[in-house]
């Protein structure tokens, strides 16, 4: 699993690929939390375009990062999840708490709209 981080316009964009299971989720947690400590990010976009698998370990780390973003009064958006990852997200019941976008571009547009509303 590879995790890459990009900070722009008060938003942390975290890209991840591979499998979001017990091992992958732990790697993601470490990288995402390090980035949240370093950058003054209010919002987070998780780019899941290249994520191939997710189970409840993956969901747990997404939920943990969501709590951190909520504590900063920010928004979390998930972008590009494939149908099987989406099914896991749906079943978990966390969909109402997170913005689901088809692409990273859509996620940026959503955050821009939300910033204007504030």
């Amino acid at each position, binding site marked *: 699993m590879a995790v890459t981080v990009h900070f722009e316009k008060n938003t942390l964009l975290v890209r991840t690929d591979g*499998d979001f*299971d*017990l*091992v992958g989720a*732990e790697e993601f947690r470490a990288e995402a939390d390090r980035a949240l400590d370093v950058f003054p990010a209010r919002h987070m976009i998780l780019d899941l375009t290249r994520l191939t*698998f997710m*189970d*409840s*370990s993956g*969901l*747990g*780390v997404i*939920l*943990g990062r969501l709590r951190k973003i909520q504590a900063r009064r920010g928004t979390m958006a998930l972008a590009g999840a494939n149908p*099987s990852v989406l*099914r*896991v997200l749906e*079943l*978990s019941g*966390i969909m109402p708490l997170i913005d689901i976008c088809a692409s990273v571009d859509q996620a940026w547009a959503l955050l821009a709209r939300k910033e204007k509303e504030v």
Partner: protein
Amino acid sequence: MTKPLLNEIRIEFKSVGENVGLSRILVAALASQLDLNVNELEELKVAVSEAVSNAIIHGYGSRPDRKVSLAADLYPDEIHVTVADDGVGIEDIQKAMTPAYSTDPERMGLGFVFMQSFADQVEVTSKPGEGTRVRLVKRIGKDGAD
């Protein structure tokens, strides 16, 4: 009439996280010997991932030096997967299977929920101090071909 057993695997592996992916791939490869659709395969992978993760995290408290056993039996229209550990066991199985019950604040307690949602049958046998055995049955082809 009993169903013909088409194939079977039995393995034992160390209780390390890397073996969650290995179990998933192994069972998926076995199941792929049947004509199953993408959804069925993905559901099976999630269910197996949850069962093995539970054995490592909860059964053994993430200790890496224990053993998890995995058995999978392939029949013409279903696959049976059994994941067993000889870890701490579960005091109250009903409670452990409740959504959002978790012993770890960063986990959502959805392991058994996902097993129940993505497998057709889930049987849990456990005794405190002796370990846990989870048996999953996934029927293949019940939704029609993709």
